[in-house]
């Protein structure tokens, strides 16, 4: 099967540049603004869109994404709303890949079979579920592959060569390399380590490798895009969003532009990268 994710990375390979993968939380700061934001992302330069499924207890996320999830829940975010938002986005965009990212409990409670059916129908292309390592593949990964939804796995600095094949076995779409041991939004990665890690992962798979954690601006993005097939940016966008909110955490007239401007800048960095090495 070829998904929108496979297609997009194929096109970019031909173009000779890395993908910009953007993360926002569904329903942050409210459902209407969140949809506006997601709809504006492709125009600002996002190649793949990750949408966070809000959860009360995001154990691998730093303060920015934790707060985004709580804002979303307060604004009425839920699994049903997330899937509705994907469907609404799909009504106007049939080519940008959508990846849902989050934690297993809301999916488990929704029901795995029902979730996969509804997600596929809404136009979801891939899943990243932080607390489902390969040891728990029977839960969601295998059923997702059966349903034609990519299951994108995280590889980390603690994933050594011995373990890497296990992590890659049922992975599809792309591999998400988490550049540091830590939570989202933490320190900027050491770029020499990143290139080495990407090379190491590519020694085990033909899948594209996207790198995230610690990307804050165009310069970081460019540095990573030189080595990787994709650059993931999340916390920096959410920080920009948060700065645009009023004192009650409500959207203002600046909110959409605050995010899209940063996406455009970072997209510029990503697009400049291959030129730099060429």
């Amino acid at each position, binding site marked *: 099967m070829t998904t929108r994710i496979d297609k997009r990375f194929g096109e970019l390979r031909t173009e000779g540049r890395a993908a910009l993968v953007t993360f926002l939380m569904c329903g942050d700061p409210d459902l209407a603004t969140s949809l506006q934001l997601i709809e504006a992302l492709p125009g600002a330069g996002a190649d793949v869109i990750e949408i966070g499924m809000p959860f009360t207890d995001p*154990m691998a996320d730093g303060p920015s994404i934790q707060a985004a999830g709580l804002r979303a829940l307060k604004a009425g975010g839920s*699994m049903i709303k997330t899937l509705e938002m994907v469907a609404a986005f799909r009504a106007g965009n049939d080519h940008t890949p959508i990846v849902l990212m989050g934690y297993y*409990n809301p999916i*488990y409670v929704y029901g795995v079979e029902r979730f996969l059916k509804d997600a596929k129908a809404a136009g979801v292309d891939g899943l990243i579920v932080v*607390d489902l390592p390969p*040891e728990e593949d029977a839960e969601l990964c295998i059923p997702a592959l059966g349903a034609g939804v990519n299951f994108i796995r995280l590889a980390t600095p*603690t994933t050594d060569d011995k373990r890497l094949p296990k992590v890659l076995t049922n992975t599809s779409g792309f591999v998400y390399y*988490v550049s540091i041991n830590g939570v989202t939004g933490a320190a900027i990665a050491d770029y020499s380590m990143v290139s080495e890690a990407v090379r190491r992962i590519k020694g085990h798979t033909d899948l594209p490798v996207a790198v995230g954690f610690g990307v804050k601006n165009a310069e970081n993005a460019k540095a990573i895009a030189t080595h990787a097939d994709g650059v993931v940016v999340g916390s920096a966008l959410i920080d920009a969003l948060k700065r645009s909110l009023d004192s009650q955490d409500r959207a203002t007239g600046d909110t959409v532009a605050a995010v899209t401007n940063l996406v455009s800048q970072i997209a510029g960095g990503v697009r400049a990268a291959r030129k730099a090495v060429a």
Partner: protein
Amino acid sequence: MLQDHPNSFRSGPDDTGHFGMFGGRFVAETLMPLVLDLEKAYAAAKADPAYQAELDHLATHYVGRPSPLYYAQRMTEHFGGAKIYFKRDELNHTGAHKINNVLGQILLAMRMGKKRIIAETGAGQHGVATATACAKYGLECIVYMGAVDVERQAPNVFRMKMLGATVVPVQSGARTLKDAMNEALRDWVTNVDSTFYCIGTAAGPHPYPMMVRDFQCVIGNEVREQMMAAEGRLPDSLVAAIGGGSNAIGLFHPFLDDPSVEIFGVEAAGHGLAEPNGHAASLAGGKPGVLHGNRTYLLMDDDGQILEGHSISAGLDYPGIGPEHAWLRDVGRVKYLSATDKEALDAFQLCCRLEGIIPALEPAHALAKVGELAAQKPKDHLMVMNMCGRGDKDIFNVAEVLGGM
């Protein structure tokens, strides 16, 4: 009564850390290699007589084990039924059963070459026990504690600091125990090479539920011997309070394959089970879900968002429960009851006045059900309740609720 039950209730977990459908290893990839390392290191330690000997030595000379099995004569007379015994784990060093587990994990951490210890704590008992063991062995100790709990458990915060630990008030989420556990997991993800995560209850990713249970089984193993010595036979029933469930599983596990022994766990019913989000009884009011590395019964809404729950006891105020309890409930081997704040407070006062023992609010929940159960049993019925902690830490909170007494 039990259909399709296994040959033994004591053989779990399986190789992948499951008790039936419960348990497992639901952690981020960064932590997965650490969890696998820990599993290996624990298996090696368990097979090493020197490790067990050191733990036994500490139990005797540092903790003060065995803790007595005490015949609570006036409570027995008061209820007029079963003969009530208390397993006196509140007499342990640091005042609760928590130290049994902490010493096992700290010795393991040192075998693994880890010098930085992190822990989560709710009421502060596990934090104090961890700080104590770290002081004894000269290890760095960081305790995550919800900011709300830091406020309501000030004496334990001070104790941890006296013992040299750093107490980090957790401001994220609802600022209680579950958020402290999230924050400890975030620390572990960040400091993978140096750090050992000392979990305080029989929950979390495999091998923690098994490992913590093993360390706490000293409680039930002693009860077996002590009851044989006192009465010449096994007890007829066991009762223990359950938050995460480490004291309970420690008492229950050695008796799971003795069909004559009835076993009762008591959850915290807070303001009452009918009160939305007003209790902490995960089995009575929750459903299966995945949090903090394991599948178990959780308090949550229809969207899978975790609820806070409520209990007067900060040690029972957790939206989940150890996975082995979830399984023991589903297979029907253990019967799970619940006690409200008010029932626990009444039992707390009764125990103070009849036995001269100030119980912690956690075992006061068990005690509340001991009264009901004992009254229905004949006088030759032997009932054991785990007095898993002493109430010194709770007297100010209790005084506040009872109007200064």
